[in-house]
């Protein structure tokens, strides 16, 4: 029998199989480097995301567009020129100015810097300090928003002289000043000032006695690190203004300096937390239960313990309810991450006070983390927590009031960016004009 000729395709088939046999281990070898794998799950903050509010607001920018890191440290709604239209007063710690956004008849705003530059203003209070019938401004000047114990703080009076504001230094060579509030503490008919010197490692709570002619004498109430806010009200109902003081920096306390008359004060601690990491950062006077006794809202959200922040489960808003005769009891109203400021208004027009919270240190790396939160009151001081906005972020200050005279409270908030954020989430000053939900 004749032999079959060799199959000409066989050598090529073997070659092909050989190549395949080589390729398979090569492909398997590079697979770990190209296959996506399964990302490890991460734990998410439980205090950053909330259902949206049912109330409607239209957001708009106030003032110029933000730079890379806007630093609005304080906002307030006040009719500065007493023309019947509420304006916005802002402390810009980037431009080093106190700025008046004057409401025009058209409803738009005119930007008017007041006085000369001051280094990192963080509170600006309108008050007729010299009793001449017009509103001056008294500013708390930090000197630097970044931590330092150096004596670079000031209290500066922007004296209103026929609409022109002149800077006059009332106190300097002290550590960073974080708050100043007016009150006639010695009952002599003129306006004195309560001052929080936050500093960093060292600080103090002072009151400045108005001696007339722009002269003030400083009195020490307490030497401590960490006083940040000194709201004034008649907390014990005796007709004399008292001074409450928030002290953070691991102390996490609220003090009450009860006015005993003629410039004397009795100090008492009305709140303290063993949680040195509470992050208390704001104290607001509000009669939340409408019992004619001023309460206090304490907001906590600071968390720059190392060099970066993260919202903590104990952040949020506490109500220090005034029970009368200077007795307070504390109740948590809401847990919200990174809260830095609060304002009170009846947003839904149902006759009770709601609360808006501004968040500076929420979980910004996850979309939808709330930057503005609404606590809606059911009338018995039980609050539903809702998200009003998730941008802009890094909100450090908030105020509420009817800006457009439609009978519904609006909101203005300022951002203080220690870090840069994406352009679409960066704001400087933002208005939220309420479009539904209020009743004239």
């Amino acid at each position: 029998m004749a032999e079959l000729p060799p199959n000409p395709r066989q050598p090529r088939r073997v070659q092909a199989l050989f190549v395949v046999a080589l390729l398979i281990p090569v492909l398997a070898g590079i697979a770990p480097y190209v296959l996506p794998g399964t990302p490890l799950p991460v734990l998410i903050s439980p205090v950053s995301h909330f259902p949206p509010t049912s109330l409607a607001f239209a957001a708009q920018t106030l003032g110029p567009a933000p730079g890379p890191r806007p630093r609005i440290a304080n906002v307030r709604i006040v009719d500065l020129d007493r023309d019947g239209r509420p304006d916005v007063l802002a402390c810009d710690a980037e431009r080093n100015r106190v700025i008046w956004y004057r409401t025009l008849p058209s409803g738009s705003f005119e930007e008017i810097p007041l006085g000369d530059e001051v280094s990192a203003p963080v509170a600006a209070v309108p008050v007729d300090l010299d009793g001449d019938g017009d509103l001056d401004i008294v500013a708390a000047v930090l000197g630097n928003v970044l931590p330092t114990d150096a004596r670079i703080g000031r209290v500066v009076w922007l004296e209103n002289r026929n609409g022109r504001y002149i800077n006059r230094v009332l106190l300097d060579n002290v550590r960073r000043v974080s708050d100043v509030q007016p009150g006639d503490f010695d009952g002599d008919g003129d306006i004195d000032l309560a001052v929080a010197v936050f500093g960093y490692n060292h600080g103090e709570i002072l009151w400045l006695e108005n001696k007339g002619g722009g002269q003030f004498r400083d009195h020490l109430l307490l030497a401590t690190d960490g006083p940040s806010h000194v709201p004034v009200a008649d907390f014990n109902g005796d007709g004399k203004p008292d001074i409450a003081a928030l002290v953070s920096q691991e102390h996490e306390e609220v003090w009450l300096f009860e006015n005993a008359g003629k410039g004397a004060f009795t100090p008492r601690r009305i709140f303290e937390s063993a949680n040195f990491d509470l992050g208390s950062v704001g104290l607001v006077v509000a009669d939340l239960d409408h019992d004619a006794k001023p309460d206090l809202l304490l907001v906590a959200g600071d968390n720059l313990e190392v060099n970066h922040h993260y919202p903590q489960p104990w952040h949020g808003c506490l109500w220090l309810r005034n029970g009368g005769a200077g007795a307070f009891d504390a109740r948590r109203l809401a847990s919200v991450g990174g809260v830095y400021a609060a304002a009170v208004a009846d947003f839904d027009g149902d006759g009770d006070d709601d609360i808006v919270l501004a968040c500076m240190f929420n979980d910004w790396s996850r979309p939808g983390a709330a930057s503005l939160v609404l606590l809606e009151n059911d009338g018995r001081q039980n609050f539903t927590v809702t998200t009003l906005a998730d941008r802009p972020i890094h909100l450090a200050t908030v105020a509420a009031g009817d800006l457009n005279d439609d009978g519904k409270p609006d909101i203005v908030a300022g951002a203080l960016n220690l870090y840069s954020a994406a352009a679409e989430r960066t704001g400087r000053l933002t208005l939220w004009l309420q479009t539904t939900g209020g009743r004239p």
Partner: protein
Amino acid sequence: MTRALLLLIGVECLVGGWWIQRHRHAVRPPLPNLTEVDRVTAAEFRERSGGARSTDDWFKLGEDYLATGFFPEAEACLRHAAGLDPTAADIAYKHGFALERIGRISEANAAYHLAADRKHPRAKDCLYAIGRNHLRLEDLPAAEAAFARIEAMPGARLERAILDARAGRTAEAEAAAKLLAAEFPTAYPPVALRIRLAVARGDGAAAATLSDAFVRRARPLPTPFDTDVDWILRRASAVGRDRLFRDAGRDAQAGRTAEAEAKLREALEARWSSEIADRLAEVAFVRGRRDESRRILAEAVERGGPSVAALWRLGQAEDASRDPTEAIRTWERAAALVSGPEGQELLLDLAQAYQVRGDQSQINHYRARATLAAGIENLDRGAYDVARQSLEESTRLDPRSPNAWFELAECHRLAGRAADARAAYARCLELDANHGRAIRARALLSD
């Protein structure tokens, strides 16, 4: 041959299929949201998150996430590393630290306990962290128990004293705080506690004396947290854009200005910041490109705001560009912002600029301010002799400054020169009868 190859291919497919399937479901490190991170740092993390294989890879990535603020991602990586090597004490410690950062306090304590059980070299620090975490949870008995186990540690002793005060054991709290204050004469926290105790018992005189002591003590008590902060900050400076900035600084110090400039430009391009712009302007200035330095600084003021430091440097650039009028204007703008110890060199530059113009009144004004600033800085540092020289000069140049006389009086008082102090307080109060600090401080002088 064909059959052999087919058999081989079959085996390879089975093995390879198993191998690929295994890696399809392999765990990969989480990648944080990098959309708002500068591109240098973002690129670095993207690369590293794709390549974590060994326990060490996971651990180091976790540490770097921790240092750059990506705490949930750090916790995930360290959790995985701890799973890969459950016996590693340092992994347990860092995992506890990461859990603490995201508020998972009970779990953090469990991790710290594990680290201590694994004989971590900082086992006592673990107990301190556990105690502090119990405070976060407001579990005072548990905190007390944890601190009691490390009773020699100064931070733990202070916490126990605070707990004593809270529980009404004021005598114990006072004794412990007093002892700590004596052992750590530069530490202010024990004195802060003593002030509160004095206020609580209505002892105004003691509170006043202690308040004065409080101001003079510059430092916090040493705690284990200082060690943690140190390594975090060191680690953060070794990542991404911060590493560029750090290395640029080292290059500049070593005289390698070209390398420094290249790194700073890359860092600035990744994300603009006024701090990097300021450093770049300084390097440009040193390299003789003064106009460019001026331009960079002007942009820094425009984009980042008119800070004292930026304005001062801008004035220097303007002065070096032979524009002294503009330099004076810029420096005076900065001088209006400074207070306390700030801006000494700026104020001296102004004095020098007016020296060239021969304006003696302005020369004296700015020199007085500069020496006052220097005096305050040295006074607050406890360098009373050096402060004295500056403050005496300041009062000579501006004898009508009540603040200068006050600071000089403080200097005398703290150095033990009571008579000189009284004279200086008197002069201060002649100029400003309402100088409350002077009135209070004078009252502290013994008769």
